[in-house]
């Protein structure tokens, strides 16, 4: 019953789900040997390099490691800002 109330109130903190979410992140970092800190500095440097060529919004950059089966993939989503072009037009 208490489980049911928890779920109604959106408080579903059942431990198996927590374990799975935590393991997803841990395994990505174990497999790539990339700590969250290293990923963060990779992101900063990437933004710096790209900014030298084109204008981007640093806050909109999204970089993550995704996986399909046991294959890892680094995915960077970098929206180009169109502010300048708009001004010129």
């Amino acid at each position, binding site marked *: 019953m208490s*489980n049911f109330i928890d779920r109604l109130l959106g408080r579903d903190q059942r431990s198996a789900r927590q*374990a799975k979410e935590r*393991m997803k992140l841990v395994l990505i970092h174990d*497999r790539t040997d990339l700590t969250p800190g290293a990923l963060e500095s990779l992101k900063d440097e990437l933004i710096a390099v790209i900014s030298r060529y084109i204008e981007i919004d640093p806050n909109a950059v999204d970089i993550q490691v995704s996986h399909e089966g046991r294959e890892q993939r680094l995915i960077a989503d970098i929206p180009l800002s169109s502010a300048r072009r708009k001004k010129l037009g």
Partner: protein
Amino acid sequence: MTGKVVTVTSGKGGVGKTTATANLGAALAASGSKVVCLDADIGLRNLDVVLGLENRIVYDLVDVIEGRCRLRQALIRDKRLPELFLIPAAQTRDKSAISPSDMVRLCHELREEHDWILIDSPAGIERGFRNAIAPADIALVVTNPEVSAVRDADRIIGLIEAEEKGPARLVINRIRPNMVRRGEMLSPEDVLELLAVELIGMIPEDENIITSTNRGTPLVLDGKSRAGQAFRNIARRLNGEVVPFMDLNEESFFGRITRFIRPGGK
């Protein structure tokens, strides 16, 4: 005859490698194959006691490798299953007493006279693991539905792939269906999704494992237990049969009675 070498490994200790090796060996031998179980956990041997053969050891793995006895002399025949043999680990040496190429040579010789060579790997990812995986045709990874075992299994699966011994096949051991139902234990589906490997068996937690180990009689020799049935199914899958996975949610008669008496309990 060219036998297949199956290495049973896990990364983490205590997840049930030795129990799995003993039961798979007994199940394969009971179905008519000629089987050797080889304990590669030098210095921490246990396969002998789990199989109930501890009183019959004269020579061990290191004696064979170092030439103090012939291979035949180190093979202990199980009297209950005449097709089942054990090569025990040495107890007073360490993992560096043998090398991966020693294991490859030994298994090459064993393949000629046996259908299956099951190697019980030590925990860890160092020398002992490398010795155990070197001769493998098939790598089985045993894990439990808990975070530390899953994490270590992932690590060992990566190493198996790096050694080109993959794809590893997964045994999920000690599943507690009641806890899975309540959402308080990783389900087999969760574990498979995290590890992304092929499943070869799911074993429910079963008290009979403890009592059968106490007696030194592999559980597969007892027809009734659920865990024994699950191990027999893995043995059949190793033989190439397609065996549907057991429904772990199917409750025992006793479980249903308990729930009837104490609704909502457990």
